[in-house]
């Protein structure tokens, strides 16, 4: 969830940038997650599209996200090669369990069981 306070002394693009980085760091946003389009996020937050575009540009320059042309903007895998692979696998696992209608608790139980075996 991104929260924006227009009355804050911090510029909106910076609030946005910092919160996306925080969510990537704490694992809320994992590699392969697609971000909303610039226009959609701007409409949701009630700010100018240029503000969102600037935040996305800076996040991309720092390597947190990547833009895949018309396919959208995605969270980049971070860390060493093994960790990157694990993040991509985790994203694929989450997508598949959601397709199958398995809830988060059951999906986590499956991962825990697999890790123990």
């Amino acid at each position, binding site marked *: *969830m991104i929260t924006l306070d227009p009355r804050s002394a911090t510029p909106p693009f910076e609030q946005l940038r910092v919160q996306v980085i925080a969510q990537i760091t704490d694992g809320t946003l994992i590699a392969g997650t697609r*971000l909303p389009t610039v226009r959609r996020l701007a409409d949701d937050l*009630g700010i100018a599209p240029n503000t969102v575009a600037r935040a996305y540009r800076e996040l991309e320059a720092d390597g947190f996200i990547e833009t895949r042309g018309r396919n959208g903007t995605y969270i980049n895998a971070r860390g060493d090669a093994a960790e990157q692979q694990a993040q991509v696998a985790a994203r694929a696992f989450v997508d598949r369990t959601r397709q199958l209608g398995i809830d988060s608790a059951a999906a986590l139980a499956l991962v825990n069981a697999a890790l123990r075996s």
Partner: protein
Amino acid sequence: MSAEALVFIVMILVAAASVLALSLVPAYTARLTRRLPRFFGLTMPQDLEPAIRSRAVRRERGAVYGAVLMTLLTIPSLVAIESDPSLPEILQENAAAETWLLIGAVATGGALGTALASVLQPASRPGHLRVARARSVQLTDYIGGLERNGARVLVITGTLGMLLTLVLAQSSVVRFALEPVSAARIALCVFTVLALVLFEVVGRRVVERPAPAGSPRELAWDDAQRAAIVRDLAGAPTVLGLFASGAVAFDVILMVAAPQPTNQTLVTVIAVAAASAFLAGTIIAIVAIVPKPQQHYLRTLWAGVPPSTMPAVPAVTAPR
């Protein structure tokens, strides 16, 4: 126009007038709103209650206006079909055809009205704090796979089955106890495909609409109501596809009932396939209802967040 069709139109108009009149009664709208938290699996925030109630009423009225408008638009075509002598005899229809056409109009118009009421709805104006989801959303977040694909499968099965019936009837490979070709079938096919296209196109448009919200709780309610609209849109092709499939099943019964000079094996194969499809459809429908499909969005968009813990005021992260 036949007397049956006229009675059906009057019934639609009376039902529509009743729903519209009820939507003006505060006690009815209050009762409608009281049911929503349990249905959507959320708690009702007092500050959002008027807005939630207004959206629920707007959705209901939209469906009624859409159904009535489409019904009224269908009347000239009913008259034209009946009175046009240039049409092939097979298309100069009977009462059943007209009723089917009207059922298609009500289902498609209702879905269209619901969607338009949502798309044309003025955006809410939250307070100075704004929250937004950090990931993109798609149609699959708002409607479960069984409902989504069920609508598609029913439409494809129904329309293809009808086309196959028409081809079989024309080719005289098998014999039917009653002639299965009719304007009703063609009209039902057109409405069924139209309803599916409406779901696929307008459903995505509803999901892509901006969701201005002042708190996670407000965003959750927006998700709930968006999911309800998407499910309403999927309901029209599901019902019409079911009708079309039912008509095909009826044709199969007529085919089995008719004496077949040849092709007895083909008739048996078609009958067994139709019965299996009906059984599979029933099982899928039961499986789809069990996991509360109206709360699918909670599992995809709010996984791990119990409704009672959704904050009414967002937490602001301090920049580092």
